[in-house]
């Protein structure tokens, strides 16, 4: 029967799409779990290094590291922006870009130049179109990002800070609140503040080997790297969670669409049968 051929093909195509979105939803769900484990695994390091730096802030070393000193913003600030490499994850990246642009505008209004470092292809494409000054870029970190992949980009920004080209450094990524909620988060990396540990009151200092500058340089660099790594891992969890939710709603919508189309198809079929019957009856009556 030739009735509703278009509708039938349409239903079939929607069903195929639904199969894909459902598969993507399940893949994202399992990847999200793994990404969350990775996020938890990275936490002890960040905590420990934060403790050490908290101790340091109280230890009054003879050498004050530039990362720990507040300084006036003169001409430019730096942003490290972490996005996903792929799309199909709802408004995750778009929301983050919006938050970033808002933060950037504040500086722009003050006449401060902005240097960017993008991690992930999406942020690179976006800020390239926007005409941002991207000075370092990393992408394709995959599902298991490694600190080694980030050393380079972080160093570019730290070097710029050391050279006085930027006077503040910010990190932007999506904060993982829970599976349903991800929040864009803008955090100040440099100068470091807010790591005071109120428990230690008396004044003392570490013994440094070989010397304070050398040790502090290494330690603070690792601290910044660990924060960026934490951001990357967290953003990955967000990406998978957002994709899971987006694909779930896509599958649900496809289901609704199939229901509507099925109804239309059935109606058309019934109408065709009724028509045919009445034609036969009319034909029989005429004979």
């Amino acid at each position, binding site marked *: 029967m030739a009735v509703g051929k278009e509708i039938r093909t349409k239903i079939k195509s929607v069903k195929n799409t639904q199969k894909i979105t459902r598969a993507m939803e399940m893949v994202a769900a399992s990847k999200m779990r793994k990404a969350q484990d990775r996020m938890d695994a990275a936490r*002890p390091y960040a905590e*420990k290094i934060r403790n050490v730096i908290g101790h340091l802030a109280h230890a009054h070393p003879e050498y004050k590291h530039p990362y720990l000193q507040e300084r006036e913003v003169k001409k430019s600030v730096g942003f490290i922006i972490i996005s996903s490499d792929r799309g199909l994850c709802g408004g995750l990246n778009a929301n983050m870009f919006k938050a970033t642009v808002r933060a950037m505008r504040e500086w722009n209004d003050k006449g401060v130049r902005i240097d960017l470092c993008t991690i992930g292809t999406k942020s690179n494409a976006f800020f390239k179109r926007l005409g941002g000054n*991207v000075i370092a870029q990393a992408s394709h970190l995959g599902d298991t990002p490694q600190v080694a992949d980030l*050393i*380079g980009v972080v160093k570019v920004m730290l070097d710029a800070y050391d050279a006085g080209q930027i006077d503040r450094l910010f990190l932007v990524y999506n904060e993982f609140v829970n599976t349903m909620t991800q929040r864009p988060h803008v955090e100040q990396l440099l100068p470091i503040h807010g790591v005071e540990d109120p428990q230690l009151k008396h004044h003392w200092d570490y013994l440094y080997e070989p010397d304070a500058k050398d040790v502090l340089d290494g330690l603070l660099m690792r601290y910044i790297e660990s924060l960026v790594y934490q951001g990357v891992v967290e953003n990955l969890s967000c990406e998978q969670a957002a994709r899971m939710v987006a694909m779930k709603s896509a599958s649900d919508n496809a289901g609704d669409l199939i229901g509507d189309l099925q109804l239309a198809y059935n109606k058309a079929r019934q109408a065709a049968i009724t028509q045919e019957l009445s034609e036969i009856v009319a034909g029989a009556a005429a004979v």
Partner: protein
Amino acid sequence: MAMTMHVDIVSAEAEIFSGPAHMVFAPGVMGELGIMPRHAPLLTRLKPGEVRVRTPEGEEEFFYVSGGVLEIQPHSITILSDTAQRAKDLDEAAALEAKHHAEQKLQDQVSEFDYAQAQTELAEAMAQLQAIQKLRKKLGR
């Protein structure tokens, strides 16, 4: 009971060891360190090498670190281990590569396949085609 101190060995990607110990040996940049409880606060860089932890049960555990930072407080030791091989020139090379990436992406806009832009162009082209087809149908009949 003999004194113990708390030892944490962590890397950026995972927690490696956490527990009490009698004594810890670590490869500092100035030489091998043997640390017992109530050591003076000390902060040092580590060379690639072996960290040995003597647990209260009298067993020794071995860990390899490829460098990192060691913090000693009187009753706790924290080893922040590196996961990657680190050296000044290696870091420099990585930084250069990151810069290079950024410059390359900015320059050759042709070879870099920009999905977002391609998609919008495709959508535009499809809309135009549809309009043309509709026009043709109208004129044809």
